[in-house]
């Protein structure tokens, strides 16, 4: 295995383009090293992107949007004094992943590129409307997070393409986001169902919403029907029931020992209601 630590994303991309065999980019390594040690994936070329300038930075831009370096860890996100005020759902979703030790290394980018349908941070990013900047042989482009996963363990990134930044929109006025997951334990587990909700209010009425589901389909889903169920409402009981029905209706889960198809489908609806209530309360400026 060749180990490289390039000084720029263009160099990282060039290394990947010219590499033969299996190539992996190394950010926090909490998935890549597990796969390496268990001999599931032994890369021929490992490209460590943490020596690139600015990859740990968490920056609020002048328009209120946020740019996160691709190696910014969960611990760094949770410790940031302002990011979690703007985007509590995104920060809490990331914070749910693994232990304190894993938080010291794990990144949003790695969680996304690992391609797990149950990745906790991905539904929260999808709901928040997060995009990623991709550096590749053709130059630099942006892509919505929901377009990155194409199946379990698979992404839309082509050979030589590497995510070079995470872009979170400006929070703006009267908005709130939240992420909840169901796990059989209290901590240190993988989502059986995850739900992200992000919405904006005009008075008591929801004017914008994005609803996403994790762990109930081969990829994380952006569920437009679920968003439509609550837009224009005050999140009354009828809207919540319509939201739950739309969320359950979008599910296409697997059946396994951690949750049956029927269970995951039911829980997606229940969690969607609870998550939306938290996002709504946050948009109203209430503690939730």
């Amino acid at each position: 295995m060749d180990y490289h630590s390039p000084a720029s994303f263009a160099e990282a991309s060039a290394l990947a383009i010219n590499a033969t065999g299996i190539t992996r980019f190394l950010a926090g390594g909490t998935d890549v090293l597990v796969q390496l040690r268990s001999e599931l994936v032994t890369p021929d070329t490992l490209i460590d992107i943490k020596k690139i300038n600015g990859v740990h930075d968490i920056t609020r831009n002048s328009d209120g949007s946020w740019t996160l370096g691709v190696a910014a860890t969960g611990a760094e996100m949770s410790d940031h004094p302002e990011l979690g005020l703007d985007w509590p759902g995104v920060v809490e979703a990331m914070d749910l992943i693994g232990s304190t030790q894993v938080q010291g290394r794990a990144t949003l980018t790695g969680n996304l590129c690992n391609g797990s349908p149950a990745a906790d941070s991905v539904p929260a990013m999808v709901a928040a409307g997060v995009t990623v900047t991709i550096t590749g042989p053709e130059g630099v482009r942006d892509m919505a997070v929901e377009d990155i996963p194409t199946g379990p363990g698979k992404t839309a990134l082509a050979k030589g393409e590497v995510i070079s930044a995470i872009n979170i929109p400006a929070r703006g006025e009267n908005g709130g986001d939240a992420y909840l997951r169901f796990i059989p334990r209290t901590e240190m587990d993988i989502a059986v169902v995850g739900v992200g909700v992000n919405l904006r209010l005009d008075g008591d009425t929801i004017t914008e919403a994005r609803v996403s589901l994790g762990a109930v389909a081969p990829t994380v889903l952006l569920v437009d029907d679920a968003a439509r169920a609550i837009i224009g409402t005050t999140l009354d009981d009828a809207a919540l029931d319509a939201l739950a029905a739309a969320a359950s209706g979008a599910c296409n889960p697997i059946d396994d020992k951690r949750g049956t198809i029927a269970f995951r489908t039911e829980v997606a609806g229940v969690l969607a209601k609870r998550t939306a209530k938290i996002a709504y309360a946050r948009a109203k400026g209430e503690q939730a």
Partner: protein
Amino acid sequence: MSKLHVTTTVNGDEVEYLCDPRETLLDCLRDKLNLTGAKEGCGTGDCGACSVTVDGRLVCSCLMLGVEAEGKQIETVEGIADGDVLHPLQKKFIEYAALQCGICTPGILVAAKSLLEKNPDPTEEEARYWLAGNLCRCTGYDKIIRAVMDTAAELREAS
């Protein structure tokens, strides 16, 4: 591929080693530097027995490559005591008998020290969540948590 040369700082001392890029920081600490306090329990970041801090951040040394340690500040369980004088956490772990087989203990000491540096006055719930990544199959955790909470109280009184 030939081995890579790494210079890093462990418990305040600059050290050098040659490593294969596939070797973890845990492998390098144990096999090259003879710092065998950090243990390999699972090797997949689930059990926390290999916990160390890197630039002040608690991590599993089994989930980090040896080459990634270049230029970093590493702290291991061997750096917790001051010579022959045990750290208050170590004294409390003995006083409370907060260990049985002892395999998890180095990782728990490193993790608990990291908690108390960040939060000198944790609630029991905060301590339990912070240490959720440190598995112990012997004690049932109660004595560990009592030892950590009592150490926190003692350190607060002392400061």
